[in-house]
Protein backbone atom coordinates (compact mmCIF):
# COMPACT_ATOMS: atom_id res chain seq x y z
CA UNK A 1 0.00 0.00 0.00
CA UNK A 2 1.97 2.85 -1.44
CA UNK A 3 0.32 6.22 -1.98
CA UNK A 4 1.88 9.06 -3.98
CA UNK A 5 0.47 12.58 -3.84
CA UNK A 6 1.12 15.82 -5.70
CA UNK A 7 2.32 18.35 -3.11
CA UNK A 8 2.08 18.09 0.69
CA UNK A 9 0.45 15.22 2.57
CA UNK A 10 -2.74 15.77 4.54
CA UNK A 11 -1.44 14.07 7.67
CA UNK A 12 -4.64 13.85 9.80
CA UNK A 13 -6.66 12.48 6.88
CA UNK A 14 -4.05 9.88 5.86
CA UNK A 15 -3.45 8.64 9.41
CA UNK A 16 -7.21 8.42 9.96
CA UNK A 17 -7.76 6.56 6.66
CA UNK A 18 -5.06 4.03 7.46
CA UNK A 19 -6.42 3.58 10.96
CA UNK A 20 -9.89 2.93 9.58
CA UNK A 21 -8.60 0.55 6.89
CA UNK A 22 -7.11 -1.71 9.56
CA UNK A 23 -9.44 -1.01 12.50
CA UNK A 24 -10.94 -4.49 12.34
CA UNK A 25 -7.83 -6.39 11.11
CA UNK A 26 -6.89 -7.52 14.61
CA UNK A 27 -3.55 -5.70 14.68
CA UNK A 28 -2.43 -4.80 18.16
CA UNK A 29 -0.01 -2.08 17.07
CA UNK A 30 -0.14 0.85 14.60
CA UNK A 31 3.14 2.76 14.52
CA UNK A 32 3.33 5.74 12.16
CA UNK A 33 6.31 7.89 11.28
CA UNK A 34 5.53 11.37 9.95
CA UNK A 35 8.27 13.35 8.21
CA UNK A 36 7.89 17.15 8.29
CA UNK A 37 9.86 19.78 6.35
CA UNK A 38 11.91 21.80 8.83
CA UNK A 39 13.26 25.31 8.51
CA UNK A 40 17.03 25.13 7.97
CA UNK A 41 19.62 26.77 5.72
CA UNK A 42 17.07 29.39 4.63
CA UNK A 43 15.10 26.95 2.51
CA UNK A 44 11.53 27.81 1.54
CA UNK A 45 10.63 24.15 1.23
CA UNK A 46 11.62 20.91 -0.48
CA UNK A 47 10.76 19.38 -3.81
CA UNK A 48 10.78 15.73 -4.87
CA UNK A 49 11.14 13.62 -8.01
CA UNK A 50 10.10 9.97 -7.86
CA UNK A 51 10.84 7.07 -10.20
CA UNK A 52 7.78 4.95 -9.69
CA UNK A 53 8.63 1.56 -11.30
CA UNK A 54 11.63 0.92 -9.03
CA UNK A 55 9.94 2.50 -6.01
CA UNK A 56 7.06 0.05 -6.48
CA UNK A 57 9.31 -3.02 -6.65
CA UNK A 58 11.35 -1.83 -3.66
CA UNK A 59 8.15 -1.31 -1.66
CA UNK A 60 6.68 -4.68 -2.70
CA UNK A 61 9.82 -6.45 -1.46
CA UNK A 62 9.38 -4.78 1.94
CA UNK A 63 5.71 -5.65 1.99
CA UNK A 64 6.59 -9.32 1.43
CA UNK A 65 9.04 -9.19 4.36
CA UNK A 66 6.36 -7.61 6.55
CA UNK A 67 3.79 -10.19 5.53
CA UNK A 68 6.08 -13.00 6.68
CA UNK A 69 5.85 -11.47 10.17
CA UNK A 70 2.10 -10.97 9.96
CA UNK A 71 2.54 -7.22 9.53
CA UNK A 72 1.59 -4.67 6.87
CA UNK A 73 3.40 -1.50 5.78
CA UNK A 74 1.80 1.64 4.40
CA UNK A 75 3.66 4.55 2.92
CA UNK A 76 2.71 7.94 1.49
CA UNK A 77 5.08 10.36 -0.25
CA UNK A 78 4.85 13.69 -2.00
CA UNK A 79 5.83 14.60 -5.53
CA UNK A 80 6.74 18.17 -6.35
CA UNK A 81 6.90 21.01 -3.83
CA UNK A 82 6.32 20.75 -0.08
CA UNK A 83 6.74 23.91 1.96
CA UNK A 84 8.02 24.44 5.53
CA UNK A 85 6.14 22.64 8.29
CA UNK A 86 4.24 20.53 5.80
CA UNK A 87 4.66 16.76 5.53
CA UNK A 88 6.22 14.93 2.57
CA UNK A 89 6.46 11.42 3.99
CA UNK A 90 4.44 9.08 6.16
CA UNK A 91 5.25 5.44 6.82
CA UNK A 92 3.38 3.12 9.15
CA UNK A 93 3.53 -0.47 10.23
CA UNK A 94 0.63 -2.48 11.58
CA UNK A 95 1.43 -5.73 13.37
CA UNK A 96 -0.16 -8.13 15.80
CA UNK A 97 2.38 -7.25 18.52
CA UNK A 98 4.30 -4.01 19.09
CA UNK A 99 7.86 -5.38 18.85
CA UNK A 100 7.57 -6.34 15.16
CA UNK A 101 6.12 -2.95 14.22
CA UNK A 102 8.75 -1.02 16.22
CA UNK A 103 11.59 -2.94 14.58
CA UNK A 104 10.10 -2.76 11.09
CA UNK A 105 9.45 0.98 11.14
CA UNK A 106 13.10 1.57 12.07
CA UNK A 107 14.54 -0.72 9.40
CA UNK A 108 12.04 0.35 6.77
CA UNK A 109 12.63 4.10 7.19
CA UNK A 110 16.42 3.65 7.16
CA UNK A 111 16.33 1.56 3.98
CA UNK A 112 13.88 4.02 2.46
CA UNK A 113 16.45 6.79 2.96
CA UNK A 114 19.23 4.71 1.38
CA UNK A 115 17.41 2.95 -1.44
CA UNK A 116 14.07 4.43 -2.51
CA UNK A 117 14.42 6.17 -5.90
CA UNK A 118 13.35 9.61 -4.74
CA UNK A 119 15.36 12.80 -5.29
CA UNK A 120 15.20 15.79 -2.99
CA UNK A 121 15.75 19.42 -3.91
CA UNK A 122 15.93 22.48 -1.66
CA UNK A 123 13.67 25.34 -2.70
CA UNK A 124 15.72 28.52 -2.46
CA UNK A 125 14.89 31.81 -4.15
CA UNK A 126 12.29 30.00 -6.20
CA UNK A 127 14.91 27.58 -7.58
CA UNK A 128 15.25 23.81 -7.12
CA UNK A 129 18.71 22.91 -5.82
CA UNK A 130 19.56 19.19 -5.72
CA UNK A 131 20.40 18.16 -2.14
CA UNK A 132 23.47 16.11 -3.11
CA UNK A 133 25.19 16.47 0.27
CA UNK A 134 22.22 14.86 2.04
CA UNK A 135 21.73 12.13 -0.56
CA UNK A 136 22.98 8.55 -0.51
CA UNK A 137 24.34 6.60 -3.47
CA UNK A 138 22.24 3.46 -3.99
CA UNK A 139 24.07 0.22 -3.16
CA UNK A 140 26.02 -0.93 -6.21
CA UNK A 141 26.47 2.57 -7.65
CA UNK A 142 29.44 3.42 -9.84
CA UNK A 143 29.59 0.39 -12.14
CA UNK A 144 29.81 2.62 -15.22
CA UNK A 145 32.68 4.80 -13.98
Amino acid at each position, binding site marked *: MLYLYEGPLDVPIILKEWYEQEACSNYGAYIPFVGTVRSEDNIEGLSFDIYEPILNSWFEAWQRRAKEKGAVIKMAHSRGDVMLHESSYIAAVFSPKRRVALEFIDEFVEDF*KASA*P*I*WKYDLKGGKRVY*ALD*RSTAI*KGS*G*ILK
Partner: protein
Amino acid sequence: MVRVEFLGPIQKKPLELDITNLNELAKILQEDKEMQQWLENSAVAVNDTLVSSRDVVLKDGDRVALLPPVCGG
Protein backbone atom coordinates in the same frame (compact mmCIF):
# COMPACT_ATOMS: atom_id res chain seq x y z
CA MET B 1 18.12 0.21 -30.02
CA VAL B 2 18.54 0.56 -26.28
CA ARG B 3 16.96 3.55 -24.54
CA VAL B 4 19.08 5.15 -21.81
CA GLU B 5 17.33 7.44 -19.33
CA PHE B 6 18.86 9.78 -16.78
CA LEU B 7 16.75 10.14 -13.66
CA GLY B 8 16.27 12.81 -11.01
CA PRO B 9 18.75 15.68 -11.09
CA ILE B 10 20.81 14.46 -14.08
CA GLN B 11 19.80 17.05 -16.63
CA LYS B 12 20.25 14.98 -19.75
CA LYS B 13 17.81 13.92 -22.41
CA PRO B 14 17.32 10.16 -23.02
CA LEU B 15 19.62 8.49 -25.55
CA GLU B 16 18.76 5.81 -28.10
CA LEU B 17 21.92 3.75 -28.55
CA ASP B 18 22.92 0.78 -30.67
CA ILE B 19 24.72 -1.14 -27.89
CA THR B 20 24.75 -4.75 -26.72
CA ASN B 21 26.15 -4.49 -23.19
CA LEU B 22 26.90 -2.11 -20.33
CA ASN B 23 30.61 -1.95 -21.18
CA GLU B 24 29.72 -0.21 -24.41
CA LEU B 25 27.45 2.17 -22.54
CA ALA B 26 30.19 2.91 -19.98
CA LYS B 27 32.60 3.79 -22.80
CA ILE B 28 30.12 6.19 -24.41
CA LEU B 29 29.20 7.92 -21.15
CA GLN B 30 32.82 8.19 -19.97
CA GLU B 31 33.50 10.32 -23.05
CA ASP B 32 30.64 12.65 -22.13
CA LYS B 33 32.00 15.48 -19.95
CA GLU B 34 28.69 16.35 -18.34
CA MET B 35 28.33 12.74 -17.16
CA GLN B 36 31.69 12.54 -15.35
CA GLN B 37 30.29 13.65 -11.98
CA TRP B 38 27.39 11.18 -12.20
CA LEU B 39 29.08 7.94 -13.26
CA GLU B 40 30.81 7.51 -9.91
CA ASN B 41 27.71 7.81 -7.76
CA SER B 42 24.88 6.56 -9.96
CA ALA B 43 23.24 3.16 -9.81
CA VAL B 44 22.13 1.38 -12.99
CA ALA B 45 18.84 -0.34 -13.70
CA VAL B 46 18.07 -2.50 -16.72
CA ASN B 47 14.36 -2.74 -17.46
CA ASP B 48 13.67 -1.32 -13.98
CA THR B 49 15.80 -3.87 -12.12
CA LEU B 50 18.95 -2.63 -10.41
CA VAL B 51 22.12 -4.38 -11.57
CA SER B 52 25.39 -4.71 -9.66
CA SER B 53 27.85 -5.46 -12.46
CA ARG B 54 28.41 -4.66 -16.12
CA ASP B 55 27.90 -8.32 -17.08
CA VAL B 56 24.51 -7.71 -18.57
CA VAL B 57 23.59 -8.40 -22.19
CA LEU B 58 21.38 -5.74 -23.74
CA LYS B 59 18.97 -6.40 -26.57
CA ASP B 60 16.82 -4.30 -28.84
CA GLY B 61 14.09 -2.57 -26.84
CA ASP B 62 15.82 -2.77 -23.46
CA ARG B 63 15.75 0.26 -21.18
CA VAL B 64 18.67 1.37 -19.04
CA ALA B 65 18.27 3.99 -16.29
CA LEU B 66 20.91 5.84 -14.30
CA LEU B 67 19.88 6.66 -10.73
CA PRO B 68 21.95 9.30 -8.90
CA PRO B 69 22.11 9.46 -5.05
CA VAL B 70 18.69 9.43 -3.42
CA CYS B 71 17.10 11.17 -0.47
CA GLY B 72 13.42 10.56 0.15
CA GLY B 73 11.39 11.78 3.06
